[in-house]
């Protein structure tokens, strides 16, 4: 199946998931897609009509969602389950803990609206701690694609894994494009999208695009920046990090709380290999935000390219002053 990159951008994560679900429905006889009353929001209207025997709406019952999907998976099937990321990581956490992490069942949990995109609905729908929660649970592969094309690859790759996966989907309609049709996607292998010697940015989800914008700004200021798309949070690609150890500063950028997300993943990886490196974590502070639309919240937390560049520039200059 071919995908129109412009269309994927317009559709946003939900529409993209719906499109790739159609491909999975054709490919796998033993697949089932389950949702907690998000048939339309998950882009699954067409899937539910074309594949009625493979589609199950359990209603607004996230705990049941995981239990039913896990039962389906335990019979040798592939189960995808969709809900909001905030619900996926908290409302059904005990079921995720038991059925996905402990029993290691073949459930792919898709968390929509991760980060700030549903910020207008307030903190109950913002998902800024889901990565931290899933990182604390053994066995679960954690994917965090950067744009529509990478969502396609992530979902298809998740279906091929025999084990639990959490797919964290950030962004909204008109998601910026990072990849065209040429994408090299291997779970556990970060993609280097920009090369520079001074600073290395590790970014994930929607922040990959913003980090690339920041790298362009910093490059014009004479600061060389490498940018990695860390589309897989677990297993983290420690090898890529080792390849860039000569950089003077590491930066992590994520649409997630700075507690327990990508920044802490990088710090843990550094600790595991016994390396020390200054790491600037850019993300959302541990606080309750007021309700606001997506773009306003990204501005508030400095999660846009020019502000990311400013934050990095300031830290880098101060760091150099201290050294000199």
């Amino acid at each position, binding site marked *: 199946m071919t995908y*129109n990159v*412009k*269309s994927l951008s*317009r*559709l946003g994560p939900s*529409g993209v998931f*719906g*499109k790739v679900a159609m491909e999975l429905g054709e490919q796998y006889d033993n697949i089932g897609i389950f949702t907690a009353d998000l048939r339309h929001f998950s*882009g699954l*209207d*067409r899937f539910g*009509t*074309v594949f009625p025997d493979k589609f199950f709406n359990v209603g607004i019952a996230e705990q049941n969602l995981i239990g039913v999907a896990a039962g389906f998976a335990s019979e040798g099937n592939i189960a995808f389950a969709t809900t909001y990321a905030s619900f996926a990581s908290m409302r059904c956490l005990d079921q995720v803990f038991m059925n996905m992490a402990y029993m290691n069942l073949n459930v792919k949990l898709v968390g929509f609206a991760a980060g700030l995109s549903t910020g207008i609905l307030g903190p109950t729908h913002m998902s800024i701690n889901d990565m931290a929660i899933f990182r604390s649970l053994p066995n679960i592969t954690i994917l965090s694609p950067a744009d529509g094309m990478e969502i396609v690859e992530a979902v298809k790759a998740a279906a091929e894994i025999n084990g639990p996966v959490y797919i964290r989907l950030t962004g909204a309609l008109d998601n910026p494009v990072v990849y065209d049709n040429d994408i090299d996607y291997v779970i556990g292998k970060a993609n280097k999208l920009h090369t520079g010697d001074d600073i290395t940015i590790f970014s994930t989800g929607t922040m990959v695009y913003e980090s690339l914008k920041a790298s362009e700004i910093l490059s014009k200021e004479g600061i060389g920046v490498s940018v990695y798309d860390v589309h897989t949070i677990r297993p983290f690609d420690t090898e890529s990090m080792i390849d860039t150890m000569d950089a003077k500063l590491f930066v992590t950028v994520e649409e997630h709380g700075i507690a327990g997300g990508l920044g802490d993943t990088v710090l843990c990886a550094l600790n595991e290999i016994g390396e020390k490196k200054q790491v600037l974590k850019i993300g959302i502070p541990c606080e309750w935000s007021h309700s606001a639309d997506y773009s306003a919240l990204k501005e508030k937390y400095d999660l846009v390219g020019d502000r990311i560049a400013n934050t990095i520039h300031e830290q880098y200059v101060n760091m150099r002053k201290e050294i000199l």
Partner: protein
Amino acid sequence: MSNKVKYTKVFTDLFNISEDQAVNLKYQDIIEWDSVGHMDLISEIEDAFDIAMGTEDIVNFNSYETGIKILSENYGISLSD
């Protein structure tokens, strides 16, 4: 290839339908032209004619015939036979 042929081909290729079906097609007549398929259609038409359609036009584009009118009146693309 005339603009009309190019336009029709977007429908036939994307939705895997005949030309006869395409010329009478309206939004949601077939399962493939749902909200997701609509964005594919718009993007393919934009690529075919090298244009960028406005939001209002995307929303109003609800049939093969309406599309001809929109492309003609708002983007100067003649789709006469």
